[in-house]
């Protein structure tokens, strides 16, 4: 019998997984609130890593593996990283076969650029919109399978919870925004591809659709989470009236230089400290150095010239011009680190299975390849590789015949949601989410201390203690209301993991524990059981 799979989220990970499931003969329902064009994946500008070695620099898969392991401070699962880096060149070929138009060099080879923390030029890119170009190609491939009846897309659907019985997942419950009602979907397996946890920090460099709710809810339902304390601050973002926007690492990859002013004199502090490649150290290091700099840090790309900027960094100059009024040909860009990527997420094995049977997680919502710090260009790769790995496993696994009855569970939750819809209260969930973001930004910054983390947990506990008694504002989407509790739980789990890791490693920098500890060269796993948060450290084997 044909396996039926539900994939939640249609960014690059969800799209890839759908294509691969269909290619393996599975029947897929691809569910998301909006079309893929709205997903965060379209924002990725810089590129995707693969040791293609088109630059004659003797790059190799081995070097890619070593760079990824070192960048992640040696806590990622080496075998999983080996699998991903080995598959990378084939993945680029596959994307090309789907019609992704990668930028080519003068010899006609796929061009590669330098990215942070990498020993060789290894980042393939498609102009200044790599993620968008890949999404366009994948959407088209998904459409082909839709026409052939193997994939069906459901839009307007927000995840509510998984349908779990006795440690096994049988489907998921959604809120249908177009029909204004809940809807349960059943399948042999559910694959989560819901992206990162941006929402915990309010507005980040990424998409507002990635709020972390699904991970928080699944945690509540028994799924383990991993390495939550590792949150990447991207070193170079600029302030705009809307949010802090990313200045892609490509700007430094193409030669951009960081400096601060000492009087009139420019101090190229990264080069002084780390030599020629100083501007391209891994992100955790660059962010910390900018944070420690005595005055405002600037990024200079003006000397790269009009042509290079137009062809390779158009997106950077456009953002600066449009949203910050900066002409990058004449002025340097004032930059500061900001929350950007989540190395942690749902804990999965190498086949991307969570600890709940038949529940998978792929892409940024899963934690696997990046250890304590992700290398730029590795997350698009991980999104694709994880999507493919999960598909292979999900389509070929044996499944249960029996389907438990979820009727009571569903009607109970329907009742709760309709209560929100008819609520008279003006209490805005939006407002509490803003408070949550303030707590996280205040207590879990680039550098952390035990005291601050403790304070953060106390503040979160207050909101947790009242969250089930709140009667929300019915004028916003019920999703905005019910998602609050899952997000708060996730926030608490993040803070607890950060408190428990009493060392400095990768993106987790503790002022009170500035050294790394050999015995903590392992992952943090947190689980939830009837009100108790349990943390353990686990070495990848």
């Amino acid at each position: 019998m044909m396996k039926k799979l539900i994939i939640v989220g249609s960014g690059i990970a969800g799209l890839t997984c759908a294509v691969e499931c269909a290619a393996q003969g599975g029947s897929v329902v691809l569910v998301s609130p909006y079309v893929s064009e709205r997903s965060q994946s379209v924002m990725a500008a810089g590129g995707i890593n693969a040791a293609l070695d088109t630059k004659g620099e003797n790059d190799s898969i081995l070097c890619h593996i070593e760079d990824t392991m070192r960048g992640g401070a040696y806590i990622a699962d080496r075998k999983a990283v080996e699998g991903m880096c080995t598959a990378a060149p084939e993945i680029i070929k596959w994307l090309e076969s789907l019609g992704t138009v990668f930028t080519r060099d003068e010899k006609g080879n796929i061009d590669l650029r330098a990215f942070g923390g990498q020993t060789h030029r290894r980042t393939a890119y498609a102009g200044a919109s790599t993620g968008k170009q890949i999404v366009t190609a994948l959407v088209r491939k998904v459409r082909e399978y839709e026409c052939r009846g193997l994939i069906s897309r459901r839009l307007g659907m927000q995840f509510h919870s998984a349908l779990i019985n006795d440690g096994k997942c049988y489907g998921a419950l959604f809120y249908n925004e177009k029909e204004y009602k809940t809807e349960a979907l059943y399948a042999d397996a559910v694959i989560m591809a819901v992206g990162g946890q941006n929402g915990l920090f309010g507005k980040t460099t990424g998409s507002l659709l990635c709020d972390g709710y699904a991970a928080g809810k699944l945690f509540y339902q028994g799924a383990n989470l991993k390495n939550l304390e590792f949150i990447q601050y991207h070193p170079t973002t600029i302030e705009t009236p809307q949010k802090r926007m990313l200045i892609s690492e490509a700007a430094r990859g193409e030669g951009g230089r960081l400096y601060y002013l000492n009087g009139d004199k420019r101090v190229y502090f990264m080069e002084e400290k780390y030599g020629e490649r100083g501007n391209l150290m891994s992100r955790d290091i660059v962010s910390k150095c900018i944070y420690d700099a005595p005055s405002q840090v600037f990024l200079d790309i003006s000397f790269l010239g009009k042509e290079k900027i137009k062809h390779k960094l158009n997106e950077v100059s456009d953002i600066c011009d449009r949203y910050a009024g900066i002409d990058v040909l004449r002025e340097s860009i004032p930059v500061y680190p900001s929350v950007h990527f989540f190395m942690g997420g749902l804990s999965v094995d190498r086949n991307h299975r969570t600890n709940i049977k038949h529940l998978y997680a792929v892409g940024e919502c899963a934690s696997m390849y990046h250890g304590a710090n992700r290398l730029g260009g590795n997350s698009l790769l991980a999104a694709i590789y994880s999507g493919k790995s999960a598909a292979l496993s999900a389509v070929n696994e044996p499944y249960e015949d029996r389907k438990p009855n979820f009727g009571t569970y569903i009607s109970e939750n329907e009742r709760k949601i309709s209560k929100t819809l008819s609520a008279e209260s003006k209490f805005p969930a939006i407002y509490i989410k803003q408070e949550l973001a303030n707590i996280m930004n205040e207590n879990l910054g680039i550098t952390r201390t035990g005291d601050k983390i403790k304070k953060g947990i106390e503040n979160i506990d207050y909101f947790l203690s009242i969250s089930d008694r709140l009667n929300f504002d019915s004028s916003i989407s019920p999703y905005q209301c019910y998602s609050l509790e899952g997000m708060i739980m996730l926030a608490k789990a993040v803070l607890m993991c950060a408190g428990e890791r009493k060392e400095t490693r990768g993106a987790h920098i503790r002022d009170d524990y500035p050294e790394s500890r050999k015995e903590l060269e392992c992952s943090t796993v947190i689980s939830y059981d009837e009100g108790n948060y349990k943390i353990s450290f686990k070495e990848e084997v």
Partner: protein
Amino acid sequence: MVVKIKRQKNRDSKAYWQYFEYSGDVNTTVAAVLDFLNYSDDLYDIDGNYAPRIRWECSCLQKVCGACAMVINGKPSLACNTFLDKMKGKELVLEPLSKFPVVADLITDRSIIDNNLRQVQLYIGERDENDGGLYELQYTAAKCLKCGLCLEICPNYIKGDNFFGALFANDTFLTHSLSKNRKKELKREYTKHFSSGCSKALSCESICPTGISTLSSIFSMEHSKRK
């Protein structure tokens, strides 16, 4: 500044206008104005009456996802890419796109875009390795946000009609140029759903937030016809 917003609770309810006072910075975008209003403790209209929060769609806040498409002072625009200080007049008028059904306030259901592309089976099949020197055009066409602004402004696009508009023409050009074995079918659909209905008003060109040249797509498709 007065902000006038066309409101609608849900698909079936009646639309009405509501006025708000915006007292924040003018050196900002329409998206930031909506956030400013929504992130207040309570929301009141200009007469001091309690107002439900304003619903609108957004994701990237940097004009790459197409979520925030709406009609701003009569012009189809992206809220996150429209600056207050560049607008003339003291009033800001926000309406949902008129060619798609309203879900709530400024949110519309644009799924017809996807449905149309599926209906005509817009996919490559086997990829043609030779890009025919069209790299730049392919690259730009692939940036289409599917935001619907080109359909909103097009005098020929009527919802539910047989004419699928500029975004369809551009996507068809892209798919056609990349395909080795489906060129014929794609060209047939192009004629049926685009070239027979386009009056070349080309309002779609200037409105496109990613600068896709529909004229170039038309030219390439017409040219390939004769091949």
